[in-house]
């Protein structure tokens, strides 16, 4: 038994620092915090990238200056960056829409290919006559691209809603089917003189480019930015409206957060699953259509260096906010472009990776408050 005096004292403490870091969940996230944290994460990522560049013997300042110049340095390269960003915006939006409802559509790549195929069908099979106006031709390509993409979203959506088939597997597998299907047409049906590509589309099937107006405004000479960017921006606004302002968007958010509550609120989850997957596929399909209408002007193999997969990353980095998807896609477009300038694979990919890591890690700061307190304050 202990004496009474000993009982009153607290037991001896181990050595403790006078300051202590405490992690507390946040009850409320201020509006300004999210952009500030994201910006901070990008800066930290660039600093880490700089450190690595310095370690491997490069000059980080020079490298960054070069990347910045190669991506955003002049009107010409900025225009090229926007060309790269266009498909990324659309695939990013496609993923953001689906992810909002916790539908893990990783099939934007395949839906992108299907959109390209759909647009090509319209042109190459003569559904739209060659002498039709640009307005009619592009309009038909747009509809076909969107419909083909939506169809490629409908299949996994229906399977998920009706048969409870995991959409991650189906969308992934449908990517390969879509690519093989396009290859079949490239190699077998529309091959031009044995090359793995169709013949070039007629001019009326080309999306207008800035350089088309160089005669009126000489400054536009050589600028490759095409009308697809307008499609992408309009799509971002539409998706923004749907998710934040429409009744359907409320249902999507509710299903995404708690499907059982949505069911209890009388929302038809089956129908919404199919619709959202179709919407997602349509956006990616629009990306494919805009890419071949605005850049390649023919159907060929490897029209996408993985835009559909980069779209997943972009959607996450934008925190599934369709408006934020636009600047993030431009940033990634720039990094892809600058990557070719300084190194085919290494550093730019590395920086992309670090940015992704930092942004995902920074999420902790949004959910928790980190405080440094004095020990004495605690009790």
């Amino acid at each position: 038994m202990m004496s009474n005096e000993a009982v009153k004292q607290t037991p001896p403490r181990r050595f403790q620092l006078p300051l202590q870091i405490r992690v507390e969940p946040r009850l409320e996230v201020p509006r300004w915090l999210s952009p500030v944290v994201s910006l901070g994460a990008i800066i930290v990522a660039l600093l880490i990238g700089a450190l690595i560049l310095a370690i491997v013997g490069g000059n980080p300042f020079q490298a960054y200056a070069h990347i910045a110049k190669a991506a955003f340095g002049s009107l010409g390269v900025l225009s090229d960056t926007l060309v790269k960003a266009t498909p990324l915006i659309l695939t990013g939006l496609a993923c953001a829409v689906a992810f909002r409802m916790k539908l893990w559509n990783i099939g934007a790549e395949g839906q992108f290919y299907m959109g390209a195929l759909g647009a090509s069908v319209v042109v190459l099979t003569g559904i739209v006559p060659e002498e039709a106006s640009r307005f009619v031709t592009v309009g038909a390509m747009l509809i076909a691209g969107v419909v083909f993409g939506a169809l490629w979203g409908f299949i996994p959506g229906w399977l998920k809603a009706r048969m409870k088939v995991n959409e991650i597997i189906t969308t992934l597998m449908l990517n390969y089917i879509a690519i093989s299907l396009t290859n079949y047409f490239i190699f077998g049906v529309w091959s031009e003189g044995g090359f793995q590509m169709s013949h070039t589309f007629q001019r009326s099937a080309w999306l207008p480019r800035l350089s088309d107006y160089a005669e009126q405004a000489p400054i536009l000479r050589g600028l490759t930015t095409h009308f697809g960017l307008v499609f992408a921006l309009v799509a971002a606004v539409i998706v923004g409206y749907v998710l934040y302002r429409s009744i359907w968007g409320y249902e999507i958010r509710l299903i995404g957060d708690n499907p059982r509550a949505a069911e209890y609120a009388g929302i038809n989850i089956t129908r919404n699953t199919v619709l959202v997957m179709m919407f997602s596929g349509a956006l990616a399909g629009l990306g494919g259509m805009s890419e071949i209408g605005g850049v390649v002007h023919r159907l060929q193999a490897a029209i996408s260096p993985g835009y559909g997969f980069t779209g997943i990353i972009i959607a996450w980095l934008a925190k599934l906010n369709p408006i934020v998807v636009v600047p993030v896609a431009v940033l990634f477009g720039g990094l892809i472009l600058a990557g070719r300038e300084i190194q085919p694979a290494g550093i730019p990919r590395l920086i992309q990776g670090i940015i992704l890591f930092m942004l995902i890690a920074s999420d902790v700061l949004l959910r928790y408050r980190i405080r440094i307190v004095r020990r004495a304050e605690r009790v």
Partner: protein
Amino acid sequence: MVQADNLVEMRGIVKMFPGVLANDKVDFELRRGEIHALLGENGAGKSTLMSVLAGLYKPEAGTIFVDGKPADFNSPKDAIAMGLGMIHQHFTLINSHTVTENILLGLDDPRFLMRLHRYDKKMETLGEKFGLQVTPAAKIWQLSVGEQQRVEILKMLYRGVRVLIMDEPTSVLAPQEIEELFKTLRSMTVDGRSIVFISHKLNEVMSIADRITVLRQGKVTAAGIPTATTSKSELANLMVGRKVLFQLDKTAKEPGDVVLELRDVSSLNDKGLPALRNVNLKVRSGEIVGVAGVAGNGQTELGQVVTGLRRCTAGKILVNGEDVTNKPARVPIDSGVAHVPEDRTHVGTAPNLTITDNVIMKSYREPPLAKGSSLDHVAARERAEQLKDEYTILAPTVDTQVRMLSGGNLQRVILARELSTQPVLLVAMQPTRGLDVGAIEGVQRLLLKQREAGAAILLVSEELEEVFTLSDRIAVMYEGEIVGDGVEADAQKVGLLMTGGKKSSLEGTAS
């Protein structure tokens, strides 16, 4: 002061959670061989205090003495090694394993070769010693909740605990099972074991405890007072800090037309087994029909079929004469059926959405919230602000995510949403479960107000007292059947029906 017969002493325990002081310099003493009730409202800090004692939480300040020596627990394992074990409200059993496997889980003894049948014997003997009958080879999912609780107790006894902490052990049990549990607990104290009984139910505490400690808002308001020297009303006072009226003013009212009618409704549960068998039930406007029963006897499914969340395999459901059988959940909602669901977090709310988004869940499709295909966010916010005031939902703003709210406030969000639509039929599933005395009173008042307003109310509750005080008519469910409709508000009779006892002999008088 450390006394010889104090098995456990807690001194000056402080435990903080972000924004909450759960335990504020709490002292607690537990004598050898006593049943000590820890009484308090929800959120008073009872479970927190005992989780500290069981090694689950580390307190910010304070000391625990076991046998007079200071003890420092880093995990529940440390606490069990000192003989302190806690049985949580939600059981920690593995459903697909047998009783024996669950008891042995985490122990070093059967090291490699399991030879479970040997241990089966041990478990049986141990069970017999304490009057806890179990089938050692049975899988957990095959057992009733009461039996599962026995397994939890055996788990602790097998580990040789001297102090058994039970967190709200009766909340899942039927009256008869509660009696049995109490017998077991008393037999355990005979050879010197002590029991901490956490509860907010005054009746139970009065009948089982030797001494009572009352917590209010993290502070001790009564420390170890002998049960014999106190009364129910005094305890309620200590718990709530004000006089609690156990009487609700319910006016006599003549029920109106039949609003809800179930005709021979049958349905399956999630496992595909029959959950409802030929249920016939009528609820009239201005009438509360209370359904009593032990959890898992079809009440959940009853609520679900009426609200369109579960398919019927047979029978018809009519709301105001309109056939809603197996219609999508939208149909009952549109015909004025409100639903306070049993599961507030998984069904009743979307945790990461704001209060605003949660209160408009049933009304967002119609004007003034809907404008064409758009949702009017300004109107939605206004609606939320108004409901927040009207139903006194305590939260910083209507933009607060509902997962941040306490159980009582969450229930207010649901009630605000469901009752503000002026329903013709209200299906209230366990509306006061887990709420504290003050909140229960508020919820019950709201239900009576709906009855005044002429709503038909189907009340499903496991609290007999609640069913008795609120209902105009009482029905009892057992194994998916209504075994008594219009039963007297008599605990003995209802209790018997709830456990399937004397079904045939009572049926004649009930119908």
